[in-house]
């Protein structure tokens, strides 16, 4: 046979079916591009050398894996869709005398051509766009970089290998499909009679129950950390329920409507309801996939967007002051005003006198299990290890013992020794006494409404009590002694002297330099013998800022990239749906016209069905998003962002933007549908 014959047949076939192949190749290329961009960014020198770059690399690599897995699954799905459409052509070749070997050669050429076009196209796109992506990513992380374009041979090789393997797998699957098929089946595969949809009450009910249960779980989760696996269970349940509802539930609903004869036998419902049942039976899985992709996009974008845009607030919560320096002591009695004064002087010198709002606090803090006004210290560390249930977490408290004399508090009655004023980060302190294990019970004589300094969000993750004591040294000593007797390293209270200050008017670099100098000076001081403290920690906002934004910026960036991938996939599914719908409706259109429906009646019936079919997933994903909201809210609070309004705003904006995009895709693809249906018109 002539050389290149099979290649020509393959190319011809693809050209004739360009309505199917063009979007397929575009999607493949898009996947290749995204894979390359993420992979090359993960190993980009610009990313690796920046502050927080290693976090970013991890996040980007995770993203690469997600894209890779998704690409594999999605290309398998689209490939099987294409194969179904092409079976007729292959059947014809088969009848005309080609054997399966010949068909396999055509298939092989097709795969090679698709692979080359999409991988090369995707790589070119990736090379062009990766610099842009890098600039975006680094800007999002709050840094700057040069504009030189880099080519990463390693990433190119990885992309080639990975997608080459995927296409090889696709080829194997198609070959197996041709191998087990019979020629007449191939020829007839499209015309095969379709079983009428049957209502599956059980599955529909199971879907409904699962969805309800999953929503209940998602809404009632108390602590996102300990209940993370519950949330994953809920996510899985929602996915299963979505598939069940779209596949079985929708058909059951249609059947239910058909039973109501008064409703069903109306010209407005008659055609719509019955063909809807068929449409849903065929499209249920695809629509459920769209719904889940849409939900993923929405949750991902709204949460990472909220993290990113809520970053400044979060950092203010995590680092209420520009710089915080804490000196640690072995025991409360070692604390002295002298060390604090020395520290303040040091700060003053190193910042060139530009420090503001400087404040010092001495405190002893510890955690315990709180019930009915008494705090159990014993076994606290054990509780921390096993504290999985929200009911335990509810009882955990962190307690700060502070000397009353250091503060100028407004109160009706100054406490006497044995008494105290209490501030609570949660609900007001509800009891008259506070009995800390191993310590004389303290009578609570008043509450402090406003704390004179700010705690970090981390410190208030569990409810915190600040206890202002006139006889601080004694009480703190009691706690210290009792805890020491427990012989549990973890149970020892922490005695610190903290110095907070702001550095207004200094750039981030200058602030970093001040804290670095401060750390160096303290390290030097550690070498000397005559100091009372045993160690120190610093917390500076500038450092937090850069690490926070390298983390949240790259998460948001990844959110955007993955959203693009998922949205492109959803768009392709929609497009293919429109095509197959079009081919099926073509014939039905003709019949309905002949039995006396006007063109307009047909069009409005079809429009309403198609609209329902396409917008049901969008509405469902909106519902999912709404029920995921409480969890997302709690989850991002862990990252220090607790701005509910911002989260609502980003969620709504994401939903609107996605909806807009969805309408756009729908309208574009509806054109393909109309083209097919009117082709049928001409043929008649």
């Amino acid at each position: 046979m002539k050389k290149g014959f099979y290649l020509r047949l393959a190319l011809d076939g693809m050209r004739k079916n360009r309505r199917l192949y063009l979007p397929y190749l575009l999607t493949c290329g898009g996947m290749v591009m995204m894979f390359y961009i993420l992979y090359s960014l993960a190993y980009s020198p610009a990313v690796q050398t920046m502050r927080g770059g290693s976090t970013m690399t991890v996040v980007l690599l995770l993203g690469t894996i997600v894209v890779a897995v998704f690409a594999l699954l999605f290309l398998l799905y689209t490939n099987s869709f294409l194969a179904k459409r092409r079976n007729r052509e292959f059947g014809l070749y088969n009848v005309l005398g080609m054997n399966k070997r010949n068909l396999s050669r055509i298939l092989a050429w097709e795969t090679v051509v698709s692979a080359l076009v999409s991988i090369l196209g995707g790589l070119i796109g990736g090379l062009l766009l990766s610099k842009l992506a890098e600039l975006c990513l680094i800007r999002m992380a709050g840094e700057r970089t040069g504009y030189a374009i880099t080519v990463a041979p390693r990433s190119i090789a990885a992309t080639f290998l990975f997608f080459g393997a995927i296409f090889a797998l696709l080829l194997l699957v198609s070959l197996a499909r041709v191998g087990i098929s019979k020629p007449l089946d191939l020829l007839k595969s499209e015309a095969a009679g379709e079983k009428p949809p049957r209502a599956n009450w059980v599955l529909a009910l199971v879907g409904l129950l699962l969805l309800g249960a999953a929503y209940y779980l998602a809404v009632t989760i108390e602590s996102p950390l300990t209940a993370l696996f519950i949330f994953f269970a809920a996510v899985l349940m929602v996915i299963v329920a979505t598939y069940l509802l779209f596949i079985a539930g929708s058909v059951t609903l249609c059947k239910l409507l058909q039973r109501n004869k008064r409703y069903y036998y109306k010209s407005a419902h008659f055609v719509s309801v019955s063909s809807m049942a068929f449409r849903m039976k065929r499209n249920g899985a695809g629509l459920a996939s769209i719904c889940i992709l849409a939900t993923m996009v929405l949750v991902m974008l709204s949460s990472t967007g909220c993290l990113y845009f809520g970053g400044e607030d979060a950092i203010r919560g995590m680092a209420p002051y520009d710089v915080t320096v804490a000196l640690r002591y072995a025991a409360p009695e070692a604390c002295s005003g002298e060390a604090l004064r020395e520290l303040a002087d040091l700060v003053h010198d190193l910042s060139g006198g530009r420090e503001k709002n400087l404040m010092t606090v001495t405190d002893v803090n510890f955690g315990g299990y709180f019930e009915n006004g008494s705090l159990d210290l014993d076994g606290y560390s054990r509780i921390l290890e096993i504290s999985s249930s929200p009911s335990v977490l509810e009882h955990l408290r962190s307690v700060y013992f502070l000397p009353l004399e250091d503060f100028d508090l407004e109160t009706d009655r100054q406490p006497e020794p044995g008494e105290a004023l209490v501030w609570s980060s949660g609900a007001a302190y509800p009891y008259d006494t506070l009995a800390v294990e191993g310590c004389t019970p303290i009578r609570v004589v008043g509450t402090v409404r406003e704390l004179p300094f700010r705690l970090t969000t981390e410190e208030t993750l569990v409810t915190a009590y600040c206890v202002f004591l006139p006889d601080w040294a004694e009480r703190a000593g009691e706690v210290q002694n009792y805890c020491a007797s427990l012989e549990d390293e973890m149970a020892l209270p922490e005695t610190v002297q903290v110095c907070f200050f702001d550095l207004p008017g200094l750039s981030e670099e200058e602030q970093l330099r001040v804290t670095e100098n401060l750390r160096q000076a303290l390290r030097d001081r550690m070498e000397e013998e005559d100091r009372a403290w045993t160690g120190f920690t610093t917390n500076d906002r500038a450092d937090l800022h850069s690490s926070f934004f390298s983390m949240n910026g790259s998460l948001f960036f990844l959110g955007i990239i993955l959203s693009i991938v998922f949205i492109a996939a959803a768009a392709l599914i929609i497009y293919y749906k429109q095509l197959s719908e079009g081919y099926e409706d073509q014939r039905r259109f003709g019949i309905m016209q002949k039995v006396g429906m006007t063109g307009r009646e047909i069009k409005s019936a079809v429009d309403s069905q198609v609209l329902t079919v396409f917008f049901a997933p969008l509405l469902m994903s909106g519902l999912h998003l709404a029920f995921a909201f409480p969890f997302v809210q709690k989850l991002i609070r862990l990252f220090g962002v607790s701005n509910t309004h911002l989260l609502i705003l980003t969620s709504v904006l994401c939903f609107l933007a996605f909806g807009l995009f969805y309408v756009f895709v729908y309208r574009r693809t509806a054109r393909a549908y109309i083209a097919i249906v009117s082709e049928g018109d001409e043929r008649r």
Partner: protein
Amino acid sequence: MSILEVRDLKKVYTSRFGTQQVEALRRVNFTVEKGEYVAVMGESGSGKTTLLNLLAALDKPTGGTVLLDGVDLSTLPEKDVASFRRGQLGFVFQEFNLLDTFTLEDNIYLPLVLAGRNHKEMAERLEPLARWLGIDGLLKKYPYEVSGGQKQRAAVARALITDPKLLLADEPTGALDSRSTDELLSLFAQVNRSGQTIVMVTHSVKAASHATRVLFIRDGEVFHQLYRGKDTNEQLYQKISDTLTVLATGGEAR
């Protein structure tokens, strides 16, 4: 009184770029009386289906008129055509044209539902019809679950349930085996005896031999017609065959 009157009917198809014109019907004249059973015969390409499409107002004639019960179809506004079609005409097609998303019952109800009838009335109409057509046990099945003959009987039920003035059939036996063909043809004869006017387009001599009159179309014109008179089906069959032979060997109209 004539229920259908076709005068100087002409249909010209223009190819997409307007370069070529094909004359499907040149000058067709005939009338159908109430209660007649007319078969229209001709080779493929003689314009049979074009004629049927014009009678059904699925297509617009280039010239001439079609009067159905005194109404000129071409003067009907577009929006009334569909309701006219479902009220006054019944269709039976070669390919059955049942919607595969409906059960047989719902397929039969379709024209009535479109006309806005209530369900009780529809059920009352269907019941005797389905029994008579022998499909009363199949109503809940979907088209793909039943045989070709059963599908065609459902299609007949759909055509008759509106009590149409005219039943139009386009090769109704074309997709049926010989037994189903016989059954369907005797069914049509029965329908006709009950007073239903039928116009059937076919190129099957056997199908045509059941009619009361046979029209022959060649090159877009009515070329000849045969009346049954007192002939039996077999005699008419012979006459039709002879006429077709003459047509095929190129005889001129007498």
